[in-house]
């Protein structure tokens, strides 16, 4: 049984990789062939209900006496199976918002409802990939990946299987026994992604998870993440500063205004998956988001110079 699963997983990974490799090799074909193949393999989602609700979230921080208003009334409904991307200028409060959803930080006012019930503590149902390395330096790579599974009480053998799968996906099999200080920054980030994915949570909170990855690895993972999402119907909130990334991944992109942060615009992207970097049809979404952000940058410059 188990062996079977392992083989399945291996085959699936390999298959995906072959497809992606093909896509890269035959640039011109990619737009058409890949979309066709992949849209056949994966169906769209159908029935939706509200999974997560942010109600008028306000959060300020104290900076040596000055108060910095980071979030100024964020209202957001996230449907079950939603892939929500958040973009916004640096320092606008994206990470803060994610922390509040994760239950790690308390809002000054407002509340987060999960399945209609207010939450205030962290839990394994909402796994977070932190923007800044939150790997445990006292654990080996593989033990880091298995940490959440161990906490969930999953037996050792199964844990090992799961972690192996994700380490494989992240091309880190060779470094399973290394400690985190022995990894490059990008490798660390991949371990963090593997750790979160391995936990297979209902809700996945990702804070710029691909920032330190080289573009090739990132492209690979962009597809991989879409496949995972399609397959498991996870609810994902994905913070990024890369507009292309948000367009490729999200079925909804939320643009945050600069401090004090409010939601400036929501853009729905209803387009077949998996989407690829090269797809020209995504350009219009890209530009739509870019326009929104440009104004923000200008506002920020004004704000600084006034």
């Amino acid at each position, binding site marked *: 049984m188990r062996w079977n699963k392992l083989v399945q997983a291996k085959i699936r990974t390999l298959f995906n990789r072959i497809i992606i490799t093909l896509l890269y090799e035959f640039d011109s074909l990619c737009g058409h062939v890949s979309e066709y193949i992949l849209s056949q393999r994966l169906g769209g989602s159908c029935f939706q209900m509200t999974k997560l609700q942010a109600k008028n979230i306000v959060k300020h921080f104290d900076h040596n006496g000055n108060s910095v208003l980071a979030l100024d009334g964020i209202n957001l409904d996230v449907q079950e199976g939603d892939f929500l991307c958040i973009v916004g200028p640096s320092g606008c409060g994206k990470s803060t918002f994610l*922390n509040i959803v*994760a*239950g*790690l930080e308390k809002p000054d006012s407002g509340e987060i409802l999960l399945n209609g019930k207010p939450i205030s*503590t*962290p*839990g*394994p149902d*909402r*796994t*977070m990939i*932190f923007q*800044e390395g*939150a*790997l*445990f*330096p*006292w*654990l080996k790579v593989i033990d880091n990946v298995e*940490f*959440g599974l*161990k*906490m*969930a009480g999953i037996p050792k053998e199964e844990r090992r299987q799961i972690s192996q799968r994700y380490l494989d996906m992240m091309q880190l099999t060779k470094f399973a026994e290394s*400690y*985190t*200080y*022995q990894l490059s920054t990008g490798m660390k980030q991949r371990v963090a992604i593997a*750790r979160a994915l391995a*936990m297979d949570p209902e809700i996945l909170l990702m804070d710029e998870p691909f920032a330190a990855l080289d573009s090739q690895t990132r492209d690979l993972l962009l597809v991989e993440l879409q496949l995972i999402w399609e397959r498991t119907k996870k609810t994902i909130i994905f913070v990024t500063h890369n507009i292309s990334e948000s367009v490729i991944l999200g079925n909804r992109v939320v643009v945050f205004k600069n401090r004090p942060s409010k939601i400036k615009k929501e853009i729905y992207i209803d387009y077949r998956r998996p989407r690829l970097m090269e797809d020209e049809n995504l350009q219009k979404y890209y530009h739509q988001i870019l326009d929104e952000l440009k104004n923000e940058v200008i506002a920020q410059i004004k704000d600084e110079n006034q």
Partner: protein
Amino acid sequence: MNKKIISEKKSQGLHDAANAALMLAVFVGIWEVVFMLGIWSKISLPSPAMVAESFYKITLNLSLPESVGITLGRLVAAFLISISFGTLIGLAMIRFKGFGKTLNSFSAGLLSFPSIAWVPFSILLIGFNEFGIMFVVIMSSIFSVMISTYSSIRNIPSIYMDAARNMGAKGFTLFRYVTLPAATPSLIIGLRQGWSFAWHAIIGAEILMSIVGLGHILSVGRDFLDMSEVIASMITIFTIGLIVDRFLLYKLEDRIRKKWGLDHHR
């Protein structure tokens, strides 16, 4: 490649030993010279040879090995109690913030009690026996363990705790798999200090309560003006302190530092 590393390690160990031996030789040399200069009478400062003889004597009549055994047994028992309770209380201090803050200061006050001050209470509450001495040792080291547990845990970067709780760790599991390992490098420093407090206390208590043990040998030596015995027992105290530190606590610290990659000073 591997072999080279191992042989390097070995030669490093040898090098260290040589270093230590050199320091020791210099020290004994200076001592001998000072002795021969006769600045102080030989009653006050005996020669290395006299101390060696004294060593030989108390080793032969077994009083030294026996005392060391007794003292160490007592010490280990008391220190284990200190560590367990100290850690538990330290954790409770983290858990209940108001309590922790108050107790943190109180412990600081109690930490400043010399072990000598605990002796009358020990006699009153427990009496002249093993447990009386252990009480003194425990009281002298537990606050150090408490404070260092408290401080170490409070100094853990919050991102580790956040990440762990986010992955569903809580309660004892959170403690066992995150709090403890994350605090370890700093806890070890505290442990080393706590160990010294315990050492101080046991020698002090054995001297004051004149119950058989290493401290007793020292105090008797002093009472009978046998400085070479005093020095012999001091060397024993020093050696044990050094061995425990070097081969237990420091080793531990070193291993953890290696594992964490803290050793990467270039």
